[in-house]
């Protein structure tokens, strides 16, 4: 059985020093897990990962498995041959009839690199030789070294590797290399983007969603499940904890001052999340908060909710504006789901005039008086967990 070869370009990982193996090993594990049940073999050379995959594996599946893996800068299906020009020419001619070359390509160039400096031709000589042969075989093509429709890449290493259709990867560091965190996932636009951003830095994540049925609908819960499902390939799988939050929410409504409702609710969510994080061996929380986006995200409000947490809280969107967040949301495919009209908080719990610049001491006092911890404990115990 002849395996299909994929050449993966590594970014930040290749800059790592002695612990590069740790990152590469994790990346291999992450991709291998996504390719199951198909068999795959991994070898690495400086700045490159070569993956040989069972030819029965659908191309789209392999492509998605690799391009959703953080640590990958780009991937291409590659052909490999001996380091002899005749074979390299033959392989280049084969590639020039496939993929993008066969899809209306009119101009091309050849880019060559030699890791093996003992190869008799220079990079320039390799490129011009291959270009000449391709032009002879396909006279309708022209060379354009500035803005070609297609580029044929040649890498002379232990063998010669040739590829033409290159897909960008997400960059970053492999998930699982930066520890574990718990992400507060709502049905909105921001929190899925926050999860994506932190996964990009190698953080493995579990997610928590607060469900206040019947004040929020089952459709809202399904929406969050769908968002977690969309994120799952990037996160390398995700456990979603659904917290039955109705009793806590009603307790807040009945006992909290109207203008303090939102912040007290967020404090309760942070408190519960900290407990859940400890239980699930997560060392930090992740939220989708952006400074001053809404009343509960002003400096003073964030300082209050932050002070309830005894864990590090990552807020990767803190300095971003909504358009930037929306842009990433569209890119990763969560936007269309996020804007479905199933709100994660009923209007009944949203005060008309929420506090914008709360007094932290006073709010702490209000929070203590609520004596909500037993309800949070009960909610935590009654959670539903789904693996997506």
């Amino acid at each position, binding site marked *: 059985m002849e395996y299909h070869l994929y050449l993966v370009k590594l970014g930040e990982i290749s800059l790592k020093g002695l612990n590069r193996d740790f990152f590469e090993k994790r990346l291999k594990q992450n991709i291998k897990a996504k390719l199951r049940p198909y068999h795959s073999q991994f070898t690495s050379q400086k700045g490159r990962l070569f993956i040989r995959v069972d030819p029965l594996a659908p191309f789209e599946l392999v492509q998605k498995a690799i391009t959703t893996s953080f640590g990958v800068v780009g991937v291409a299906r590659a052909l490999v041959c001996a380091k002899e020009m005749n074979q390299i020419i033959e392989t280049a001619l084969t590639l020039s009839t496939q993929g993008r070359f066969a899809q209306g390509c009119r101009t091309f160039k050849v880019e060559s690199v030699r890791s093996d400096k003992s190869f008799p031709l220079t990079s320039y000589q390799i490129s011009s030789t291959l270009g000449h042969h391709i032009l002879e075989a396909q006279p309708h093509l022209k060379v354009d070294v500035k803005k070609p429709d297609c580029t044929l890449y040649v890498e002379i290493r232990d063998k010669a590797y040739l590829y033409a259709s290159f897909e960008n990867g997400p960059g970053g560091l492999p998930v699982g290399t930066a520890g574990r965190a718990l992400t507060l996932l709502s049905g909105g636009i921001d929190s899925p983007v926050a999860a994506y951003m932190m996964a990009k830095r190698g953080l493995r994540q579990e997610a928590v969603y607060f469900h206040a*049925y*019947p*004040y*929020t*609908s089952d459709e809202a819960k399904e929406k969050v499940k769908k968002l977690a499902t969309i994120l799952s390939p990037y996160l390398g799988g995700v456990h979603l904890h659904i917290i039955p939050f109705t009793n806590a929410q*009603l307790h807040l*409504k*009945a*006992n909290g001052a109207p203008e303090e409702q939102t912040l007290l609710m967020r404090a309760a969510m942070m408190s519960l999340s900290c407990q859940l994080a400890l239980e699930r061996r997560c060392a930090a929380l992740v939220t989708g908060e952006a400074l001053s986006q809404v009343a509960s995200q002003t400096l003073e409000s964030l300082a209050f909710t932050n002070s309830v947490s005894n864990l590090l809280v990552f807020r990767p969107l803190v300095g971003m504006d909504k358009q930037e967040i929306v842009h990433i949301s569209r890119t990763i495919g969560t936007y269309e789901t996020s804007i479905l*009209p*199933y*709100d994660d908080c*009923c*209007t*009944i719990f949203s005060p008309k005039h929420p506090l914008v610049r709360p007094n932290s001491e006073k709010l702490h006092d209000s929070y203590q008086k609520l004596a909500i911890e037993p309800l949070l404990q009960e909610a935590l115990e009654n959670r539903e967990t789904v693996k997506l």
Partner: protein
Amino acid sequence: MSTTYFDWAATTPMSSEAIKTYNDTVKHYSANPSAIYESGKKVATFLGSLREQVAEALKITSQQLIFTSGATESNALVLSSLLWKQRKGNVIFSSLEHPSVSQWAQLLTHSGFEVRTIAAKDGYVNPQRLKAMLDDQTQLVSILLVSNLLGTVQPLGQIAQVIRAFEKQSGKKIILHTDAVQALGKLPFDLNELDVDCASFSAHKFQGPRGVGLLYHKGTFIKPLSSSGGQEQGLRGGTENSGGIAASATALLSSLTDLEKNIQQVTLLRQRLEKHLAQEPSLTLFSPSIEAGKPIVPHILSLGVNGIPSEVSTRVLNDAGFAVSSGSACSAHQAAQRQKPLISTGLKAQQASTAIRISFGHLTTEAQIDALAHTLLHHTATIQASLGRR
């Protein structure tokens, strides 16, 4: 858990007689009625007799009747006909109109019409206020006969009088259309006495099948939306839905025969329900009470649960085994649109956001009414208590 159905204004269960008629018809009248061979002619004759029966039941002529796919299409046939007019002018809709009428405002405005909306204070259009909105540019007035949200019966006869008087004065024709889907089989009325130019109906509202509607029309202003084989006097192309039309005729005749008896029965159910609901102070009737003597249909009752978004009440009742309609949404951006008709009656937006609609029929039992009321009272009290309101 089985669900007790309290959403008859949305759709009604198809009657067993209508189902039987449907089955018999599709079995025995399967040919295309436009065909010139014998079996086709047989279906054409059968359809002709159905048209006669329905027209006779509605006290109109068979030429004044078009079978459509439902009231949405009937409304569209009337309103799209305006687009052919050279002189654009204005049209007047009541604020209570169903979206299948009100959403035409966008296209009509885009096409050069001015769309005016007459508010329905306390659920009723005031004919004198309408009179003040008419001018010599008014092309069409569309007022539903029975509000699907409140069950209020509009003074269509008086409205027609105002319009006809204005026509005499201005010398220009004004088309009076009514979306009467919630009236047929629920309320005695005479299209000739109402003096409307066109009226829309839907069979599934009177225990007929989905996918069949009626359009009553006088005059020559209706233009086809789809022209094909010249069916329905050339006004609605497409092979006739013989089975659906036959089943609709059966359901209509049955509902009209039993009309008085059903109204009496449903009125008793309404009185019983209102009596139960009066026990809970945080429930507010948005529909007029049956005891107030105002013109209403008894089977539609809208009410608000103080401070509880309608979606929440609907979910709670659904979980307890009762299907009622939610008049609005928990989500603020959706609510604004869906609450408009209720707000136009004088309700505050906050009240309108709590509306639920209970609608029932002659098959509903007293025990079901009692169970619904008991559940509604229990849950309302529980929710109010859990929110610290009592």
